[in-house]
């Protein structure tokens, strides 16, 4: 009885992990898992509603919607992952430096951060990618550059909370070098903040890149990108609504799952931090 109650409590928690797992499998399997060639056109069967042969129907060029979704999973996960990792690495290094060095290094970094902090990254990405026509790499670069400041702030304040604690003080007294204090002593204690934020950055990058593709910026035409599919299939809303609803649901589900997992990771790490502090 009690075991079942415990499982029942765990089931809602498992849903996001399960959903994300499916998408990861699709990303790994890619075209090999897709029932059809994602680029193959079938002009005799365009904009067909879902059927036994095409579970999610076909788009206006007769391409299989499910195959395109499966094949698009890799880029849908890879792009945001690059942004999230890039932001985490840059923000950790800069934040550690600002928090630990203090002085003019800190104020120079923080002035820059303050200036960019309030800027909505996606809005700037729309303007920059649109005007320069730089495509996907530029979109990723802009999103990284504009998401770093918020994380720098967070890492810096975590460092500020740690830098005067006894363990840092004693390491300094014993004569441990600055680099070593930063990366072997401070970094492990700041890492929970960074990891929790990594997932949040992933979500905003996923949404951002999909939004750019939806507006026709970033990804090239023809690529099976989820955001792109939304824009392309919007026109046949009355013929095959699934062609547009499916990528919309998929983007939302992935974003929500990662957010939920990130939230849980953050809670667990915060709780562990409290235990360590108490010990």
């Amino acid at each position, binding site marked *: 009885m009690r075991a079942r109650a415990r499982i029942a409590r765990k089931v809602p928690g498992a849903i996001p992990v399960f959903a994300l797992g499916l998408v990861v499998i699709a990303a790994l399997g890619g075209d090999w898992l897709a029932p059809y060639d994602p680029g193959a056109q079938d002009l005799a069967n365009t904009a067909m509603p879902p059927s036994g042969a095409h579970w999610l129907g076909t788009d206006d060029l007769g391409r299989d919607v499910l195959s395109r979704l499966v094949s698009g999973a890799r880029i849908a996960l890879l792009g945001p992952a690059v942004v999230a990792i890039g932001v985490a690495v840059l923000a950790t290094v800069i934040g550690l430096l600002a928090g630990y060095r203090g002085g003019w290094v800190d104020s120079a970094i923080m002035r820059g951060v303050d*200036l960019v902090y*309030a*800027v*909505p990254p*996606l*809005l700037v990405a*729309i*303007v920059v990618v*649109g*005007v*320069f*026509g730089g495509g996907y790499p530029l979109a990723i670069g802009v999103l990284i550059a504009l998401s770093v400041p918020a994380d720098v702030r967070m890492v810096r304040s975590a460092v500020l909370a740690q830098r005067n604690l006894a363990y840092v003080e004693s390491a300094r007294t014993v004569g441990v070098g600055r680099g070593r204090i930063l990366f072997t002593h401070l970094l492990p204690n700041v890492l929970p903040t960074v990891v929790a934020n990594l997932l949040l950055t992933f*979500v905003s990058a996923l*949404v951002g890149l*999909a*939004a750019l593709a*939806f*507006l*026709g*910026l970033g990804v090239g035409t023809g690529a099976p990108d989820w955001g792109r599919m*939304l824009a392309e299939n*919007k026109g046949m*809303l*009355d013929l095959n*609504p699934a062609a*547009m*609803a499916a*990528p*919309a*649901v998929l*983007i*939302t589900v992935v*974003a*929500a799952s*990662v*957010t*939920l997992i990130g*939230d849980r990771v953050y809670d667990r790490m915060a709780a562990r931090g409290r235990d360590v502090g108490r010990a």
Partner: protein
Amino acid sequence: MYILAFLGKRLFAAAVTLLVTSFVVFSLLAASPGSPEQTLLGSRPPTPELIAAIRARYHLDDPFLSRFWQWLGDVVQMDFGRSVRSGQPVTDMLSERLDVTLALGVYAFLLVLVIAVPAGLSAGIRRGSVLDRGVTLTALVGVSAPPFAVGLLLLTVFGVGLGWFPVFGAGEGFAGRVEHLTLPAVTMAVAGVAIVARQTRAAALDVATKDFVTFAEARGLPRSVVLGRYALRNSALPVITSAGLVLAMSLTGAVLVESTFALPGLGSLLVESVSTKDIPVVQGLALLTAALMIGVNLVVDLCYLGLDPRVRHSGGA
């Protein structure tokens, strides 16, 4: 005295930010691919007279910095030049498109206030209840749901499936407007509701444990007074802080929502101008956005002063 110093400091910071932003926005023309004349010519035939006229109008023979000052002088007088695409003054184009975006923004903002604040407050007061868990989970999903996906799903269900709301256009007259803007406004409000509800809940959780609330309840004051006068006012600060965040999200949201629902607002104007490389219009929109953001953040600071006597007396450090 404190208040004046505080105000002065914030105004100065706002002015500096605005200046830096306008410099970046100005540089957009020089930085965009192709020469400035080419960009400003657009699709018009490149006759020598026209090129000379453009060079004179945009002071292209002057050094970069002096061009910037001249441009800034025009901008202060609300003159952003003419659209490359239509030849219309940018200011006219902006004001034409403004009302749809403004109506959408106000509508969405009202929805956020009406839904998020009560939901967050009651969730925070009854911590751990079914209601609380529901609000928390919904807010978590709402924060991450992309506006265009939400919009398209609403469109599929309520526009095409049930046929309750019109599928595109901005509508005529007040009733038509409300009818046409309901789905877009709901779409835009989702993220805002999620943020504000989370903030309000956290603030209410914090306030609910305070002695003065326990005391108010012990005195037998009605729940509405305890909630409305004590809890709401004391949880207002963090909620107002998130207003800046909500605005930033709604600006991005406006671009996506207007494109999704084909509304003729400022957001869709930005997308059109960006993809046709209509730099003067992009510059006008970018500056307008920056000024709005900076202005709202300034107002948020002022609200602190008005709402919390402690900030007033400590000088807002």
